[in-house]
C-alpha cells in the first residue's frame, strides 16, 4: 500500500495568490497599488484574488488615514494566513523530498517571522 501524497491548500495553490501571500509575509503590509505593481496584475484580477484570501481569513485589510484626506486600504497577512503559508511551504518541501529533489532548497521557516 503506497503512502498518500500530502495535499496542498487549494486557496494558496494558485500562482498569484501564492505570490501575494509570500510578498505580504515579507513586507508586513502593502497597499493595493504596491501589490499591483509588484505582482504585475490587473486591477480586476488582483481584486478577485485578494477578495478570496480576505474571505478565507488569510488576509486582513485596514483603512490607513492620511493627512491629504483620502484614506488608503492597507493589506496584511493574518496569523491564519501566515500559518497557512508555512504549512503550504512545508507540504511543498515534503513533496520535493518524495520526488527526490534536494530538500535543503526549501524556504526556511525563519523567513516567515512576522515583522512587528
Amino acid at each position, binding site marked *: 500500500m503506497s503512502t498518500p501524497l500530502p495535499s496542498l491548500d487549494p486557496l494558496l495553490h494558485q500562482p498569484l495568490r501564492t505570490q501575494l501571500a509570500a510578498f505580504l509575509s515579507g513586507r508586513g503590509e502593502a497597499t493595493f497599488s*504596491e501589490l499591483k505593481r509588484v505582482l504585475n496584475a490587473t486591477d480586476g484580477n488582483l481584486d478577485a484574488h485578494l477578495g478570496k484570501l480576505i474571505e478565507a481569513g488569510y488576509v486582513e485589510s485596514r483603512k*490607513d488615514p492620511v493627512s491629504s484626506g483620502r484614506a488608503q486600504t492597507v493589506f496584511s497577512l493574518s496569523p491564519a494566513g501566515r500559518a497557512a503559508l508555512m504549512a503550504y511551504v512545508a507540504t*511543498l*518541501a515534503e*513533496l*520535493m523530498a518524495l520526488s527526490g*529533489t534536494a530538500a535543503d532548497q526549501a524556504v526556511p521557516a525563519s523567513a516567515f517571522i512576522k*515583522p512587528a
Partner: protein
Amino acid sequence: MSTPELRLETIQSMLFAGHRSVRLERHSLLLWGGVGGFLCAATQPVVTVERFPELQQRATALLVWLAFWLGSAACADHYLTRRVRRLREETLPFAQHQITRAWWMLLAMGVLGSVAMSVHGGAHMVYALWTVLLGLGIYLFGLFSRPLTEWIGLATILLGVGGLASGLPFGTTRWLAASCFAIGLPLAGVLGARTEHGALPVRLSALAVWLLLVTGVPLSLASVSSWTPVPAAMPRPLSGLAALAGEQVVSLPAGTAVPLRLDLDSPLLTVAPQEGLPLTLNRSIEIALRDGRPDGRYRLAGGTWHQMGEGLLQLRIDRLAPQLERGEPAIRAHAVFGETESAEELP
C-alpha cells in the same frame, strides 16, 4: 525543475522582494548628499579659532552648526519621504521606519563625536569618522534594499578606514568625506536604479564607476587646494630680515632654537607667559612672511612649499605621567610631532 521546486522558488523570490522593500528615495540621497558635502567643505572655514577663540564657544558653535543643518535635513527628508510614498500610494515599511531611526542615531553620534573631538582632541580623525558613519548608514539601508546599496555602504566604510590607516593628510580626508556625501549618495541612487535588474558583472562595474568618481574627484580637489604658491622673495637668515611691508622668506637652519610657548588653559596648572620649552630644529625650515608676520607657508629642508591649513604638521601628546625627579615634582609628557607623510618624531 519540478513544480514544487518552482513554487518554492517563487515564494522565496516574493519573500525577498517583501523583505527588501526599503528605498532610499532620490530626494533623500540628494538632500543628505548636499548637506553632508556642504558641511564637510564649509565647517572648517566657518567654525574657526578667529571667530570663536574660546574652546567652549567653539564646541558650542560646532554643535549648533551641525545640529541645525542635519536636523533640518532630517525633518525635510522625513516630510518628503512620507509625501512621495503617499503620492505613490505606498506604505512606509516597518523596516524603513527603524532604519531611519538608526540613521538619525548615527548622525547624532557623528555630531557628538565631532564636538567631543574638538574638545578632547583627535580632531584629525573627524572626517574619517563621518565617512565611516555614512558607510554604516548606507550599509544598513542596503541590507533591506538593493544589493548595490549594500556594497556601496561597505566601500564607503573601507574608504574611511583606509584613508585614516594609510595616513592621508587631513585636507584629503575632508575632501573624501565631502565627496562620499555629495557625489557618492546621489550617484548610488542613479546607479542603483539603472542596475537593479542587472547581472553581477553589471553591478560590479557600477561599483567600480562609483569608486572611481568618489575617490578621483576628491584626490584631484585635494591636490589643487593644497597647491601652495611659491614665494617670490629670496630666503634670508633671521638676522637679515628687514622691517618691510610685503613678502619675505626667513630661513632657519638646523640647530636654531625655537622655544615652544605653551598657552595652557587649566584650572590645575599655570604657565609663566615668557617661559618656553627649549626646542631645537633638526632640519632647516623656510617660513614665508607677509608684512613681517608668518602667513602660514613653509617648506622643510628645501622640499615643496605647504600651508599650515593643510594639516600636514601634527602634534600628538600620547602619554602624561607625574614624576619625582631628584625630589622635585614634574610632569613627563611624550609627544609625537611631525608630518603625516613622513611621520618624523622629534626627540
